[in-house]
């Protein structure tokens, strides 16, 4: 018996009892649907994370010095020297100083703000565009000017879009606001836009702290590895202990993040697959019932010359078709739900083509796998007994 013939027969049999078929497929529909939804959402999240990192620049290397002793110190000039000696690798460099301090305007204190001391090159490296005013300048650093560049949170929420020229109080000193960085997030309190940059020289001076981290930008992300090597080399020369410093580059960070989300996806999909298993058992159950109901039909077919494999393939194709139909409905349902969820969460959640193909194949495979036992039972029936069965 040809495949198309068996397929038509299977469709006929599925359509002849729609309600039962739908209930049989339900497990597969839910299983495939949830796999598609999870893959789509995790896909959206991964893309979101990657593009967030990428917007910060993939050619950026962050260097932090965590330990030091009295005799061995990294000073800013050494790092500048490393940069100027390797201009074919590095595009820019900025010492960065994370300052803890109280930020006040009028009587209000701002506690969620990230306050950083940086150099004039920091904006260029991190692709920060100015909305108004200017970024820090070389002269600001050189002369320890008390100037600040603020995020849009301050400009919009605190200064009513009129912050240039105003003064903000940091650790008791008045800083003049000279520029506003373009909005990166949503200008809310605690967001990326809730930030203040001041010259690292000024910051170091007023907080009596040493610069302990640096940001390097390579001329091309391909140089990240070599750049990391150069920096680590020169740091080791001074510190003589690789636990005292760390260099991380964003490209590696993106890789790690992608790896982590894909691992999370696998785990979630694994859990969702349990419902596929349950769906398969549902199919097996109905197929067993269907074999029992059709024992006489099997007997007739056998008496007319159907071989074991004919009966076997008839039931396998029927099980496969049932689960494939369930799979298709599940995929459509999954795409639909993930679009809606994606819209609600605000990410672009759409399944990849391979994930659709894989879920479809898995659903067919499950149908055939779980259809095997009933099909085998049918194929092995003795024609005499089957013909007499009522």
């Amino acid at each position: 018996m040809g495949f198309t013939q068996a397929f038509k027969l299977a469709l006929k049999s599925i359509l002849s009892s729609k309600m039962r078929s739908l209930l049989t497929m339900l497990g597969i529909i839910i299983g495939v649907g949830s796999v598609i939804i999870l893959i789509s959402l995790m896909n959206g999240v991964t893309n979101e994370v990657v593009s967030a990192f990428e917007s910060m620049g993939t050619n950026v290397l962050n260097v932090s010095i965590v330990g030091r002793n009295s005799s061995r110190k990294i000073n800013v000039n050494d790092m500048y020297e490393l940069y100027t000696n390797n201009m074919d690798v590095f595009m820019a460099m900025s010492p960065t100083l994370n300052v803890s301090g109280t930020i006040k305007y009028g009587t209000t204190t701002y506690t969620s703000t990230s306050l950083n001391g940086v150099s004039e090159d920091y904006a260029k490296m991190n692709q920060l565009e100015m909305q108004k005013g200017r970024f820090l300048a070389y002269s600001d650093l050189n002369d320890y000017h008390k100037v600040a560049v603020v995020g849009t949170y301050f400009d919009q929420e605190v200064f009513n879009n009129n912050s240039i020229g105003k003064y903000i109080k940091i650790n008791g000193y008045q800083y003049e606001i000279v520029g506003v960085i373009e909005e990166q997030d949503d200008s809310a309190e605690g967001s990326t836009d809730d930030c203040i940059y001041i010259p690292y020289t000024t910051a170091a001076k007023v907080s009596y702290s040493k610069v302990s981290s640096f940001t390097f930008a390579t001329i091309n992300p391909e140089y990240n590895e070599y750049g990391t090597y150069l920096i680590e080399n020169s740091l080791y020369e001074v510190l003589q202990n690789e636990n005292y410093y760390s260099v991380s580059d964003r490209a590696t960070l993106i890789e790690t993040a992608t790896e982590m989300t894909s691992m999370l996806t696998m785990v979630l999909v694994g859990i969702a697959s349990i419902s596929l298993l349950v769906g398969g058992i549902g199919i097996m159950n109905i197929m067993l019932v269907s074999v029992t109901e059709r024992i006489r039909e099997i007997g007739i077919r056998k008496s007319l010359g159907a071989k074991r494999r004919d009966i076997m393939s008839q039931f396998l194709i029927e099980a496969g078709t049932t689960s494939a139909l369930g799979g298709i409905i599940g995929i459509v349902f999954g795409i639909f739900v993930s679009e809606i969820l994606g819209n609600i969460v605000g990410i672009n959640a759409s399944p990849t083509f391979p994930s659709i193909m894989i879920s479809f194949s898995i659903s067919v495979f499950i149908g055939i796998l779980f259809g095997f036992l009933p099909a085998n039972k049918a194929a092995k029936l003795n024609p005499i007994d089957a013909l007499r069965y009522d």
Partner: protein
Amino acid sequence: MIPLIELKDVYKIYQMGDNTVYATKGVSLKIFKGEFVAIVGQSGSGKSTLMNIIGCLDVPTKGKYFLNGSDVSALKDDKQADIRNKKLGFIFQQYNLISKLNVLENVELSLLYGGYSSIDRVNLAKAAIARVGLSDKMKNLPSQLSGGQQQRVSIARALANNPSIILADEPTGALDSQTGIRVLNFLQKLNNEGNTIVLITHDNNIAMKAKRIIKIKDGEIIYDGVPENAFEE
């Protein structure tokens, strides 16, 4: 001349717990091409067992069965299925049509398993349906037909792949006498056209329609000959 069917000392023995049941006890018979044979016996006489063996639905425990000269006594499932498909046409008491399939599809079934192309299937099936006079009911489901019509469909199905032997197991058992006679007349007509027919029945009157009668009792042949003398006690 090689007989179409030759049984040599055929035994079918069942083990039912401690009891050994002999369904047939050394049955030997020959049926030649073009014959119309009725196998008659009461229920439990062993005629059904005999028909299962002749129909390649079962194999003898002991003894040989030659179909058209070749030994088919110990074939595996799928080989038996092949013989049933190519050499035998079955007509059952309960018609045994598949209720979901229409008349044409039912008649096509044995051709389907015989590996015919879809064009050949339709043509052969249509020809067989025409022979039983149901060309206008091709698209009907079995449930939309009368008992007599359903039996004619099952005859068409048996004829479709032009088998060597037509095996009819109580073909009139579920029909009223009028319709039953018409079915029997049709079988006679088929026999006149050269088909070999083996009819299994418990009814002496029906058996009388055949050209030769084999009576079975307790698993043994007690009469084999012309109908005229079969039922004189």
